[in-house]
């Protein structure tokens, strides 16, 4: 078996981010919110303060660890919502065709015409800031690529011999869509989903940066960047570490998406057995 570097590196980075988020209470040196101490304000990175401290003397290392929780929750959950919506709409549109396909196409075009971050901003403006609003706003606005892909796959798979054979064997529409179409398009859908998670992490950062995300003082990578922007020259570590966390997580997700594309191909799956 040939070593798939992208899968290994990407998977490790993503796994590391998840572990960091899960184990934050044990790995953190201090409480990310409570342990403010003006005596230690704006300490640069050192053996005591690995990533330095902020203007209130809070440990950046601990805040980055906790920040992983928000960023990953938003990235994973909102992308799952997007994938489910995109697959449900696209798959059924491609399979049934007709007026339903027209409706779904119109919706998709609408979504593609409006930049999803603008759309999410509008939703956030209505719902107000907070984690739930973030999940809803990002979960409802980034399904158009998945939908397009699912629809195109369903269209081409529909005429495959095994889909017609399933009809002949008495499968109903739902069973055909779930057992014959969905598994055969899952590879690219998962790849798109993984990449989408990366962009959701970025969107969370952007929205939090604009003050629409999780409310301070609880940390998210985006809100940390937002708070750090005035000290970017005097205390660059305040921006560098959350920025690095975002960068590595998104990089990891992109590499993982690439690597997954290879192993989700059934031909290559058996070549390894």
């Amino acid at each position, binding site marked *: 078996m040939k070593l798939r570097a992208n899968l290994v590196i990407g998977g490790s980075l993503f796994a590391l981010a998840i572990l960091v988020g899960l184990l934050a209470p044990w790995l953190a040196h201090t409480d990310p919110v409570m342990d403010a101490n003006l005596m230690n304000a704006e300490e640069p990175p050192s053996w005591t303060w690995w990533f330095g401290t902020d203007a209130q003397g809070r440990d950046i290392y601990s805040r980055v660890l906790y920040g992983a929780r928000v960023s990953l929750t938003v990235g994973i959950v909102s992308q799952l919502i997007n994938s489910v919506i995109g697959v449900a709409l696209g798959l059924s549109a491609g399979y049934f065709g007709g007026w339903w396909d027209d409706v779904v196409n119109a919706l998709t075009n609408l979504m593609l015409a409006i930049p999803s971050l603008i759309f999410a901003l509008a939703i956030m403006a209505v719902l107000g800031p907070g984690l739930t609003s973030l999940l809803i706003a990002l979960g409802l606005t980034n399904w158009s690529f998945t939908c397009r892909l699912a629809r195109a796959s369903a269209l081409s798979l529909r005429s495959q011999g095994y889909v017609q054979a399933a009809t002949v064997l*008495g499968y109903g529409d739902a069973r055909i869509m779930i057992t014959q179409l969905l598994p055969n398009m899952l590879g690219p859908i998962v790849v798109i989903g993984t990449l989408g998670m990366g962009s959701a992490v970025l969107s969370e950062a952007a929205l939090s940066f604009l003050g629409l995300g999780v409310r301070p003082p609880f940390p998210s990578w985006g809100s940390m960047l937002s708070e750090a922007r005035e000290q970017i020259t005097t205390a660059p570590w305040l921006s560098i570490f959350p920025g690095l966390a975002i960068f590595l997580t998104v990089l990891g997700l992109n590499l993982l998406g690439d690597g997954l594309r290879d192993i989700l191909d059934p031909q290559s799956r058996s070549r390894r057995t």
Partner: protein
Amino acid sequence: MTGSPLLEVEDLRIDLDDGSRRVAAAEGVSFRIDRGETFGLVGESGCGKSITALALIGLLRPPLSIGGGVIRFEGQEIQHLSAAGQRQLRGNRIAMIFQEPMTALNPVSPVGRQIAEMFVLHKGKSWREANQLAVEALASVRVPAPERRVKDYPHQLSGGMRQRVMIAIALACGPDLLIADEPTTALDVTVQAEIIELMRNLCAERGTAILMISHDLGLVANVCRRVAVMYAGRIVEERGSADIFRAPSHPYTQGLVDSLPRLGSRAAHGRSRLKEIAGVVPAITRFPDGCRFNPRCAQATDICRTTAPPMEELEAGGFVRCHHHA
């Protein structure tokens, strides 16, 4: 219902709607298949065999549709069943296997699961029971080491093995009728013989009737008790298999029989060209008036060019559609 045949097709007409007009892709198609019987449908490519089969299971889709006639399965008119009612027949009471064992299996699903799905779908079994039954089904089509093979994906199996899996799926629910549309064309000759033999034996054991569709008269006559020959959307002759070889009645059938390689003849060894029927099958939109075979028929007369011959019953048994039949 005893007495009534398993399948009865009466004056079936299949329309092809090409947007501007309707043409009959098949018409006047009538035949019956009794329980456990083997019936063959033979004809050149494009004569309407597959669309007839699709009509039987209610799966004609636009631009094709049933334009008239009746199809009765166990006395029940298939066209009048609800969509759900038709679905319950398909795969359960009437099963079908195709020409393409390469593409008729889902590539990302283990073959055992695809067999098991039939028991879950039609027999209401739990997945546990169904998986067990799938191993038995695979054993019944003589796949070696079935308990290991159920976990294989289709691309791990040879063409012959895949066709065995297709047969296992088709026969899983113990259907009353198996439609086999060119089941072995894609396989090499020795595998072909094995698969046909297997299919015939399994169906004979279980009392499953077979409707075998092929362009190969020799193959069909070998498997089936009765054979119908189709030409340009019409059945032109229906006879017992032995009769059709001994004394083909329709000029087209005579041509088919003459073009078959005889065992032991030089033709069988490919040294001389087989006698072929001159000309080509007309396109649906350009069927000639009168008898559709008349442009290719050596015995054609004026009446053949104006009047379509009716189906006539032969004294020796069977039917033929020709003004000047033997």
